[in-house]
């Protein structure tokens, strides 16, 4: 039996088991509806314009946050990794800032910035910067000195050194960092949305409640568990797709190393 077949049988089995439990009366079907009901809600949601706007709001905030985090962390990481003195001073500060769980900032950020779009984006940036920064610094200080010396022997300019030697050599590790940051940024965007709650229809796309706001409204506000779980399923789907895309990018463009060494 092939692996794919076992994958399919297993997944169908899990769904069937959930369906059975959901229909058996062991659990309250209003609290934990069976997969068939949730599936029907999912189909409805995919045709729901308002819901798709919420999903776009979440994904867009996530993408902007991750982009900003990359723009901050990669240059800083290259700097810290290349200049040892700056690096050790910065690492001291980073070491003390990094353990702060970024969700701890959410209440403060909601008071200071309000429920605006910037709030979830900046919180996600704060959380997403560290893994990228960490991996970049590690990767730069880990470049094989033979490579650097060879490049020097060929009289490469500073810029050529950066683009032809340093960046390709650190890319796999940086990408691993970005992958970790991607899931952290998603956690923070959704967390902020869940805590801010609610969605106003007049808001611009980024200011909407997003997927987290939708799930909160459905679950705690309206006690519509079928909608809440369907929304959670979509959140999982987003995370799943993001991960697949990252793995594909890693395989396609930086296939000279798996980049797992720096972790």
């Amino acid at each position, binding site marked *: 039996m092939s692996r794919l077949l076992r994958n399919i049988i297993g997944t169908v089995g899990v769904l069937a088991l959930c369906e059975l439990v959901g229909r058996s009366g062991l659990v309250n079907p209003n609290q934990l509806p069976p997969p068939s009901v949730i599936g029907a809600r999912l189909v409805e949601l995919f045709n729901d314009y308002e819901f798709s706007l919420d999903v776009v709001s979440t994904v867009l905030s996530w993408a902007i946050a991750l982009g900003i985090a990359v723009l901050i962390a990669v240059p800083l990481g290259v700097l810290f990794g290349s200049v040892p003195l700056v690096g050790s001073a910065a690492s*001291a*500060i980073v070491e003390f800032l990094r353990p702060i769980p970024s969700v701890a900032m959410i*209440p*403060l950020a909601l008071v200071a910035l309000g429920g605006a779009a910037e709030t979830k984006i900046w919180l996600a940036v704060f959380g997403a910067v560290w893994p990228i920064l960490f991996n970049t610094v590690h990767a730069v200080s880990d470049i094989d000195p033979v490579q650097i010396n060879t490049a020097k022997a060929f009289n490469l300019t500073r810029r050529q050194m950066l683009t032809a030697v340093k960046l390709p050599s650190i890319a796999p590790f940086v990408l691993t960092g970005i992958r970790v940051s991607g899931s952290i940024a998603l*956690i923070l965007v959704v967390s902020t949305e869940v*805590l801010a709650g609610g969605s106003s229809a007049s808001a611009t796309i980024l200011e909407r409640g997003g997927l987290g706001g939708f799930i909160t409204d*459905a679950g705690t506000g309206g006690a519509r568990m079928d909608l809440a779980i369907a929304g959670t399923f979509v959140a*999982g789907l987003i995370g799943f797709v993001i*991960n697949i895309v990252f793995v594909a990018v890693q395989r396609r463009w930086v296939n000279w190393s798996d980049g797992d060494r720096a972790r």
Partner: protein
Amino acid sequence: MTTVVSRRRRVVEITGKWVVFALFVAAWQVATELAEAPYFPTPVTIGRTMVDLWLSGPAAHLFLTDAVGTQIVPSLLRLLGGWAAAGAIGIVVGLILGRSGKAYDYVSPTISFLRSIPPPALLPVFLVLFHIGTEMQLATIIFGVIWPVLLNTIDGAHTLDETVVETTRSMRLSRTRFLATVVFPAALPKIFAGLRVSLSLALILMVISELVGSTNGIGYQMILAQRNFAIAEMWAGIVLLGILGYVLNVLLLAVQNQVIGWHIRSKSLTGR
């Protein structure tokens, strides 16, 4: 001789780090004093608030206030309880799945989907299923932090040296003993890596679950502070959580060095 030199270098390194950090805090003090921004109290104000909140109790209680018992202790218990439970489940299930390729094939799509769900998205669902309180928070923490341990354990158990497998097979160990005495120790380095990721994730989930649905805990205190616009108290909570994250990580690293020091030493011997 070399150990004395390297130890001295380590001392210099560590003092240097704290000096830099002290300078950073001093700079922050000056900046916040000059800026007088309402949302950014000075470090001195934050420190004073922290002492007022948690360290101004009677001497008989080691100066700890009642708030330590009602806010910090419940948070810590939930954090450690959820993390330990997730760790235990993740390790046991991971060892079994890691050594059985077929069983892993059956459940791997479900696992990769479930771990893709950002755990906070489940909070509204768990709130209805478990109601506000410890039960809901433990569910959130366990569901959120089990994946790094589970996947790392599977990985560690799966990539076991074939010679070891063949050797133990010739010893006719029972399956349980094989998993417990051969696979588990061999997978420990990977398991510890997973446990570390999980611990910092557990702190995040503890906070967020307390922010959403709780009647006590550090996160609950921060929500109260938010409602009262007590900015300094919110900062006190942030700093406390940072300290907790730092201390927990240092403690786990110490345990890790005790338990799998052999692995780290063997790695440095082979020059990797």
